[in-house]
């Protein structure tokens, strides 16, 4: 169906373009005074756009609409006593679709056959309607474009206006993404806290200050009376602990790398060291997670065993160290940028006073670059908080409220992943809890990013 539709659309668009530009050429050769306002190609493009846009819109609106109508028609044909709740309706609908596609195994009941027939007829009627409507509008567009070809007609201006609208629409996709994130996450979060029909939902205070996290208890609706715990604090401490370890590793390493690369390194060393950092930055986190879980964690555990410490095999230390390695290139490249942005005159001034290179760096360059470095660290923290795969593979699942880096802790992202991977229903508190965690994550990283980017911006303006 969609194949035929889009083939027809392509044919109409091309025909519109070709015929219109031909006609425009013909018009320009006519004897009357003056030449064509727009090049023939613009007349062609204008007609093509007039065909393309309505046909695309018809399909984009019609296809999902038809799905809904067909579904409800099929269910209406089915006796309502047989499909009472959401789950049964979904299963029935699948059966109906399988039957309509001749893939139903077993002997279908009479009601099912009825429903399948209804579905088939609704679908074919709807598809022909969409097809007819689309072709009709396309032809109308074609007629409009084709008949308006004239020496005076400003096809280029019209087409450029159309292009501008398309460009604008593309630029708003980024905004729409943000809006989509905010609404999808916020909506489920509000349901999580305030939907009265939800069993086991916590209050906002319970969530923010509770010290126990145990979403599993709310897994099934008939377990509603079992104590469910949605205390966010252990997740927060776990996330912060791993982030802290990561920053302790990446901060000095990244900063000193940046200082060395921008102030000391010869071009040859730079040419050698920069790719190392770039390769490290390009390694997928799932690879780092594998490395953390299968190599780093056993090594750390082995060392601990050696000196008589009992280290959990999913210790925060292993995950934190590898995550630190992940953000070294991040801190280093951002700090490199801000250090390079410090004007040469400041350095020259310090050298003129007799300062050594390291004294210049410590007493002049770093203070001058401090806002930028702070924002680099904030961006790095935000990245560490939001990082998923390393902690999923190397950190634990149990929500321990501890600050001991040798224990297993869990993080916000690990819990989101654990809750949402696998089958989930949208009306359990457990699933919605993941969205609430997602909201916290989004909010925290957003605040960190906004502040950091604002600092960078202002700082840039200061020296430009």
């Amino acid at each position: 169906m969609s194949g035929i539709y889009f083939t027809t659309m392509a044919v109409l668009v091309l025909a519109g373009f070709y015929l219109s530009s031909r006609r425009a050429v013909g018009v320009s050769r006519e004897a009357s005074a003056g030449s064509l306002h727009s090049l023939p190609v613009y007349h062609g493009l204008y007609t093509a756009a007039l065909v393309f846009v309505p046909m695309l819109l018809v399909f984009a609106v019609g296809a999902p609409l038809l799905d809904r109508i067909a579904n409800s028609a099929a269910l209406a044909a089915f006796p309502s006593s047989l499909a009472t709740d959401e789950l049964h309706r979904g299963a029935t609908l699948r059966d109906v679709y399988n039957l309509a596609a001749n893939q139903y195994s077993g002997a279908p009941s009479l009601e099912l056959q009825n429903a399948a027939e209804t579905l088939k007829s609704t679908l074919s009627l709807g598809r022909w309607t969409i097809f007819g409507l689309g072709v009709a509008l396309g032809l109308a567009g074609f007629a409009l474009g084709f008949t308006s070809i004239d020496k005076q007609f400003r096809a280029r201006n019209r087409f450029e206006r159309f292009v501008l609208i398309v460009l604008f629409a593309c630029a708003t996709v980024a905004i729409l993404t943000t809006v989509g994130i905010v609404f999808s996450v916020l909506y489920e979060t509000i349901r999580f806290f305030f939907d009265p029909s939800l069993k086991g939902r916590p209050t906002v205070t319970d969530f923010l200050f509770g010290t126990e996290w145990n979403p599993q208890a709310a897994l099934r609706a008939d377990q509603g009376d079992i104590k469910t715990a949605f205390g966010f604090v252990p997740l927060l401490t776990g996330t912060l602990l791993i982030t802290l370890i990561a920053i302790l590793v990446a901060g000095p390493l990244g900063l000193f790398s940046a200082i060395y690369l921008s102030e000391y390194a010869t071009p040859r060393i730079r040419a050698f060291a920069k790719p190392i950092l770039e390769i490290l930055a390009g390694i997928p986190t799932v690879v780092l997670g594998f490395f953390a879980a299968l190599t780093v964690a056993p090594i750390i555990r082995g060392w601990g065993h050696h000196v008589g410490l009992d280290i959990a095999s999913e210790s925060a230390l292993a995950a934190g160290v590898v995550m630190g390695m992940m953000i070294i290139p991040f801190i280093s490249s951002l700090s490199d940028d801000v250090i390079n942005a410090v004007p040469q005159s400041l350095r020259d001034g310090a050298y003129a006073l007799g300062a050594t290179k390291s004294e210049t760096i410590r007493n002049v360059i770093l203070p001058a670059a401090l806002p930028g470095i702070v924002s680099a660290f904030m961006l790095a923290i935000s990245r560490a908080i939001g990082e998923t795969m390393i902690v999923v593979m190397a950190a634990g699942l149990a929500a321990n409220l501890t600050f001991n880096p040798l224990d297993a802790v869990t993080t916000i992202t690990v819990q989101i992943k654990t809750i949402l991977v696998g089958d989930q229903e949208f009306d359990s508190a457990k699933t919605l809890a993941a969205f609430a965690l997602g909201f916290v994550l989004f909010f925290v990283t957003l605040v960190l990013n906004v502040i950091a980017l604002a600092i960078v911006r202002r700082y840039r303006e200061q020296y430009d």
Partner: protein
Amino acid sequence: MTDISMDIARPEPKFRLDLTSDAARARIRSRYRAETRFKAYGIAALTVTALFLAVLMFDILRNGLPAFWQHSLLLDVPVAADIVDPAGKREAGAIKGADYFPLMRNALNAAIPGIESRSASKQLTRVLSVGAPDRLRDMLVADPSLIGKTIKVPLLLSDDADLYYKGAGTGIDDRAGRGTATPSGRTGEITVLTSSNDFAEELQNIKLRLKSVADTISRDAGRIERSGPDQAQRVASMRAEVANLANRYQQPGNAEALDSKVPSVLVAINGGLVKATRLDASGITGDVLLPLKSAEEAKPGTWKVVHYSTPESDRKVTDQEVAFLERLREAGAVDRHFNWRFFTTGDSREPELAGIRGALTGTALTLLVTLLLCLPIGVMAAVYLEEFAPKNRWTDVVEVNINNLAAVPSIVFGLLGLAVFLNFFGLPRSAPLVGGLVLALLVLPTIIIAARAALKAVPPSIKEAALGVGASHQQAVFHHVLPLAMPGIMTGTIIGMAHALGETAPLLMIGMVAFIVDVPTAFTDAATVLPVQIYLWSDLPEPAFQSKTAAAIVVLLAFLFLMNGAAIWLRKKFERRW
């Protein structure tokens, strides 16, 4: 003015530049030391980073490269017509559906004759993979005339046997027997007695081990006793155990039993192999792993004492299997070949059968959707923002928004995909279409930022010249500025796609983690992608899967390096300084 200077009485300066005193020299020395130290910190930081990267790469390659090779047994398989095609019609369906297990067993029994015990023959068939007959089946379907003949086919080994040949089994050493050895039989449980004390060394090792076990228990008992009197009974039983062990190790002569926690001791004699279960200095009692040709006595030097240095409980293959595998290796039946299957099959529960074709296809489909969406949208958005957008509040908001979007955690995009694409629009779970949509939104900011930078790098004079000869604003941009910015945009796009290629977390959210055997063929089929396949395999307990995971990582990194290399090449080739 000149006389002013005359009036100034030069006061004693409060601070004198002092460069020569010892204190000053020391100060300067310490300043230079600080300088060196500071520089060393930088070098150390870079070294640590480079070292980490090197260890990471080395570890992945060390784990992953062996998985690109695989071992098969090249055996003569007599293809009995009554097993493969009892009906005699030579139909492809019947040949495909036949039970090949008896054929495999016969071929193995022919390679290692004389195995009688049930458990031993079971272990013999276990060295083959459940997918071992695949190759034979394909050959027979392609050429039914082979039925009834004996053909040489590679039979795929099981993951544990494969790992054994890759060196994950045990070290083996042997030494010639000094005395004359006399076996008491050919099969079953037999004794082998020697005329000299050939096993004194082994016996001593076992006694030493008993002593160390006794010492450990004794230490533990002491600790428990010190910690309180409430476990007196336990302490007493531990002490008894220690006494018992001491009794055993203090008498060097008497026989000791061997268990699976100590290195295995075996005797290779008369073409067979006996595993010792009990030994004293001059003889062993044990089970025959490979039957002896005869029960005659063996002269000194014609029989051997063999050690499997890794205790049986520390490895995946039993002594019996090691004996079989070693015998097969000696017979030259083991064939090492490149693991093409890894690239041509989908996922499997059996490590030796699992491949990444499904994941690679899923990745290709997903990235195709991503590219088709985010390249045009990203470029057009960048063109709008850079060339046509009025400079006002709205544009500022868009700009800040894009920068922030680039820093939103990727898992949040997964939540967006789950809530919007799956639950609101009702698109299918696990589909490359949805994965591609989510990844497109994820890398869109990267591409927009890169494209804007590329557009900004084109000097305004180009555009102005076009405008000057009468082009419209759009003509100037689309005919002149955009083509010049294209190499930069392509570089940014490749880097963005490389980012999308390595992304895992958002795809977990939209259900691309299912165990999928079939290779996907459409954008709405259930599929998985390479990074998710890596994640899935890394969770599995089999050691062979750990190796597969690393191999899949090698493939992923190879693709990433290829893409980044292409980006660098593009940048170098088309880079223009205006």
